[in-house]
């Protein structure tokens, strides 16, 4: 009985809590991709680098605030810098839309042209981020690191296994809930949100009923900027900020959006958690877990890891492939076929 409880705690520490946090980050990222897809009808390859840009802005403001001695300890200062980062990213995305995408929209260009344009935008953003902050790792988390430390947990409960709960993880989950609630309130209750959904469902009908398409597009970019910055900052607080990692996040984010159904916000959230938990469970080493649950002489010698963590991208990819093979519209029936 003790063994079962200990192994449950072990899994909570290494699978459940990190999976929840990572899943929330992916979900917020995928929401941005899915919104842009729903309104502008292309997969935005620049989303990863938009996240990097937003996070960079947050980091710079955080450093400034730290230099001024502003702090909201025990919470990280980055939280205070977040609105400024979002603002900077909104400006960036609105300018990109004006200079790049608007022309192709007027031309009624094929979706693949938008896709290529977004690759160009990705290049430029990537260059800007590396130019300003450099290609290296940056840590900007401060404040209290843990909500519960593993050792304290053990002392309190008297169990063998402790569950550590990092501030960044708690923050991620709380923020995700707030962001998702706010987004759904916006999409379902406000006029602007309703016009967005109408435009996404049936463009012609929406135009006919007097919805201004440029306004819808603008709101979409504002939301995408906010979501990208929040997702990027939470990821950076939880792990660390490195421009190339953010580019690599594109794959799990796209996989999340497609698994849930491109263009479907609810699907993006489900997809994010599916991808995150698959990644974490497949790359976790089950040696200790099995040692708790098996008779002593059966305990395995090897790590009992299904896949090494270097292959975590393979997990998103395999799930993506399965979805494309079995149900190309995604679990929640998105737009794309």
């Amino acid at each position, binding site marked *: 009985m003790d063994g079962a409880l200990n192994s449950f705690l072990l899994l909570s520490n290494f699978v459940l809590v990190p999976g929840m946090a990572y899943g929330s980050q992916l979900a917020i990222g995928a929401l941005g991709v899915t919104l842009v897809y729903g309104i502008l009808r292309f997969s935005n390859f620049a989303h990863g680098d938009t996240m990097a840009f937003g996070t960079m802005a947050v980091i710079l403001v955080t450093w400034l605030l730290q230099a001024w001695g502003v702090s909201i300890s025990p919470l990280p200062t980055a939280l205070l810098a977040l609105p400024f980062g979002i603002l900077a990213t909104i400006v960036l995305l609105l300018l990109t839309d004006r200079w790049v995408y608007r022309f192709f929209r007027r031309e009624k260009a094929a979706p693949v042209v938008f896709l*290529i344009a977004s690759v160009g935008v990705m290049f430029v953003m990537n260059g800007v981020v590396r130019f300003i902050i450099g290609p290296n790792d940056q840590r900007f988390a401060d404040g209290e690191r843990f909500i519960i430390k593993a050792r304290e947990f053990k002392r309190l409960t008297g169990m063998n296994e402790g569950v550590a709960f990092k501030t960044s993880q708690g923050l991620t989950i709380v923020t995700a809930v707030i962001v998702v609630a706010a987004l759904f309130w916006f999409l379902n209750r406000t006029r602007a949100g309703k016009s967005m959904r109408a435009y996404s469902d049936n463009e012609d009908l929406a135009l006919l009923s007097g919805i201004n398409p440029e306004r819808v597009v603008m709101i979409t970019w504002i939301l995408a900027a906010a979501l990208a910055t929040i997702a990027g900052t939470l990821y950076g607080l939880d792990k660390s900020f490195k421009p190339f990692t953010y580019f690599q996040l594109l794959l799990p984010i796209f996989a999340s959006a497609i698994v849930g159904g491109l263009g479907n916000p609810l699907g993006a959230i489900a997809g994010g958690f599916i991808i995150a938990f698959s990644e974490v469970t497949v790359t976790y080493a089950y040696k200790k877990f099995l040692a708790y649950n098996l008779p002593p002489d059966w305990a395995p010698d090897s790590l009992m890891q299904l896949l090494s963590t270097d292959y975590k991208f393979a997990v998103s990819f395999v799930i993506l492939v399965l979805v494309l093979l079995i149900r190309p519209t995604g679990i929640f029936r998105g737009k794309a076929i």
Partner: protein
Amino acid sequence: MSKNFNRRAVLLFALMFAALATVGFAQSWSLALAIVNLCLISAVMSLGVNIQWGYAGLFNVGVMGFAALGGVAGVLMSVPPVTEAWRVGGGGIAISLMLAIGTIVVAVLAARHIPPGNMRRLVLAVIIVAGFFLIRAFFDPAVELIEAVEPAKTGFLGGLGLPIILSWVVGGIFAAGVAWIVGKIALGLRSDYLAIATLGISEIIVAMLKNEDWLTRGVKNVSGLPRPVPYEVNLQQAIWFQDWAATLGVGVVEFSSIYVKLCYAGLFTIVLLFVLWLSQRSLNSPWGRMMRAIRDNEVAASAMGKNVTGRHLQVFILGSAVIGIAGAMLTTLDGQFTPASYQPLRFTFIIWVMVIVGGSGNNWGAVLGGFVIWFCWIEAEPVGLWFMDMLTSGMDEGSGLRKHLLDSAAHMRLMTMGLILLLVLRFSPRGLIPEK
């Protein structure tokens, strides 16, 4: 019209060679030839992408993966086999390979014979999971044994010890095989899905090359691959070569380096011309017309009885094979295989810029784009540094901002490439040499 078009192409190519000659005169001929060699390889790669994008409108974001497959073919063909590693672990690897094939065969058979439904899904899942653990049972110990064989020098199985030129063909076959699998899954769906699937597969291929030490030595790299051309040292010692250099009045060391690069350039030019000839032939054949018809209006082509998805698969495989060949050529030129050097920006997106700038759908355009963009890519760094130096010359010598700007000059390249792509896409979407 056609006359005009040819004149423009000839003029642009002449300008390109003039630029290369300028580098030769101003910097050194050795450097100019080094640029030419990479230009030739880039041109082959962009021909491959052009086959996919220009002929059929397929957006492949996994060029890096296919190029890396070509590179690994270079290692697997040319390196002499490590007999000790084969003795200790070869059997285990062979058994796991057989088991992998067996699992796939059983899964396919099961999929064919059980009617669709939850039952079939369950059976397939059981077969695949069981196969996975069975393979791991043989595979893991074998890998451990192989990687323990002189890890500082070998620690991998080695290759077949054949001439490295053969790897150019094999690299193409590897890339074609992977392209078949990816195409089967992602083609016939929306264009975005192919983009995302290729992005994923290329990341996975590179991750495998970095981590499967038993096959590729991983990040320990394989260096000293045998060459298809003579070595500088041997040339410098050969009497005939010394005489030749003396007659021409050049230093033996410099001449040997130029000579070797010329040999490579000759080989690459042959491949480039061959691929170009085939591409031109196919583009002007009934097949090429059909491809363009499909690209321009899928619905109409499909109504005329053309198998759109089938043709897309075909063209995707062909283009990927060309990219694989170019990848093998690159590894041959480098003389080493370094998995960590495969970066998506360097291997995927720059090739795209080449195709778009050169003129999508036009093979000569793709070749020109390969030359122009590679040239800019190489020269952007000194120019960027010079620019930054100019910009910051008024600043204090020890100023932090100046140092930061100078250090960041290297990242100007990314921005330049992105800007070129966006500007061409916006103002001249048909590229330097437009499609007829």
